[in-house]
């Protein structure tokens, strides 16, 4: 596990060695502010909560997380460092988890830096801070889900642009699958059970319930199994693509 820690630190520092980290954080903060105050109507609603802040996270992540995850493995493959990494005494599991956790920790930092919005809400009114904490937890879990998808896709290609676009589309699908637009399309002909399954795959469905302050075990299990599934697929992808 100390080797995983070493990988984690290298990867995490790597974000700050290039402008990637700063660009990402600035744009993330700018967009969350924009959506919360202008699109979400933070002031106009007259309610002291962060619902308009969290509401847009799935859509922001859909765009921004693939930008973080696209380089995770495709860069290693392109530059040949994958061969270096995989011939060091680390297991594939440690490598996959270490890199994923570093990326996740990085998004956590971006998320923490949104704290001025939380301070604003507390300054203006008396929001339920446990609901806000739940919102942050849900947002972090969702970011992890998107990242795990992106990491796996990134392992499949040497091309970062392809990694970005494909991850974006898959993240989009995971968001959309809970939308009435999609569900209604299936509702017409598919049995209710299938509609429920499709709906239950949505990030939106699970995120919305956590964000309301209801931390349901099922939602937590959903996100953790989703992350585990995509990271496992990530390992398989690296194994399969190593030699090419």
């Amino acid at each position: 596990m100390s080797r995983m820690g070493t990988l984690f630190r290298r990867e995490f520092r790597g974000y700050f060695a290039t402008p990637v980290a700063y660009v990402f954080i600035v744009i993330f903060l700018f967009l969350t502010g924009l959506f919360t105050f202008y699109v979400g109507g933070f002031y106009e609603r007259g309610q002291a909560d962060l619902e308009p802040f969290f509401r847009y996270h799935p859509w922001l992540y859909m765009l921004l997380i693939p930008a973080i995850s696209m380089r995770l493995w495709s860069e290693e493959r392109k530059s040949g460092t994958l061969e270096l990494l995989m011939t060091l005494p680390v297991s594939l599991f440690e490598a996959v988890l270490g890199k994923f956790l570093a990326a996740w920790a990085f998004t956590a930092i971006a998320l923490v830096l949104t704290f001025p919005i939380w301070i604003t809400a507390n300054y203006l009114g008396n929001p339920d801070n446990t609901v806000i904490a739940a919102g942050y937890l849900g947002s972090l879990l969702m970011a992890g889900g998107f990242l795990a998808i992106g990491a796996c896709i990134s392992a499949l290609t040497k091309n970062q642009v392809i990694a970005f676009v494909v991850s974006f589309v898959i993240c989009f699908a995971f968001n959309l699958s809970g939308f009435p637009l999609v569900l209604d399309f299936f509702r017409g002909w598919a049995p209710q059970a299938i509609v429920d399954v499709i709906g239950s795959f949505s990030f939106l469905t699970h995120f919305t319930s956590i964000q309301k302050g209801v931390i349901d075990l099922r939602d937590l299990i959903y996100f953790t199994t989703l992350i585990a599934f995509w990271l496992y697929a990530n390992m398989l992808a690296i194994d399969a693509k190593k030699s090419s």
Partner: protein
Amino acid sequence: MDNLIEVSELRKSFGPLVAVDGVSLQIKRGEVLGFLGPNGAGKSTTMKMITGFIAPTGGSVRICGHDVASDPIAAKSRIGYLPEGAPAYGEMSVAGFLEFIADIRSLAGETRTRRIREVVEKIHLEQVLPQTIETLSKGFKRRVGLAQAILHDPEVLILDEPTDGLDPNQKHEVRTLIGEMAPHKAIIVSTHILEEVDALCTRTAIIARGRLLFTGTPAELEARSRYHNAVTLTVARVQAEAVAAGLGALPAVADVEAADVDAARRRLTVIPREGQPILELVQQTGRTSGWALEELYVESGHLDEVFRTITTTAGPAGEVTRT
């Protein structure tokens, strides 16, 4: 433990393409194996399997007794590997990169500091330590790759074209370095520079189309040359024809090749039958015939010629039946 590296019946196929076909090698401590072969012969693929990067389709690799497939961590921690092209994390500084490698190789405390210092000194990286790797010249990048490979003082060293892209001075340095480490390690060096084999290796293995076609000492390899024990000499142009005819008529001589040195002189290479030594015979014949023979020397053999013969003539018939 006798063999630090034990490769048996290694096979790798990519779909219908057989990249490595039944390669077996045993390498002891103190041996430097020169791994030769044309581009695309399966050298790199074999090395990737030995170091556990890719899984073989068949066969096995044991490093210091640890099976690479079933006990990869133990095997990998005993290997130092310089992959082809010396990949490294470009955004890291040289110092940061070496510290990362030290940490992941579980070097700690005093050993960690000492090993980094020793390797940096040995490979002359002092001046580039704070620089990021992507800003380094090709020679320095290669040296960083080498530093990374020997940092944990591994028993087994696998170097894929360690001198590729280096200038003659750097090549010499790297060879000296490998030579210094050789007595304590088992080393595989892949190359397509034949002079390197003579300069560096105790043994050579030639691979072509995935098959091991020759293993033996560099001297044995040279002995396969038709130029092995040939005598080369310089003679005045006016005498050249007579000398060539006279030497060519000797029963021990197979052939005489001639080339111009300058306007007044020609160089003759006298090739013996079956590699027998003919220096004395040539000298004696020269004396009795009253020829003025200059610059006589015995050839040990032309490696590039042997290399070409071995890698281009062997086994197309076998190839056909296999697919």
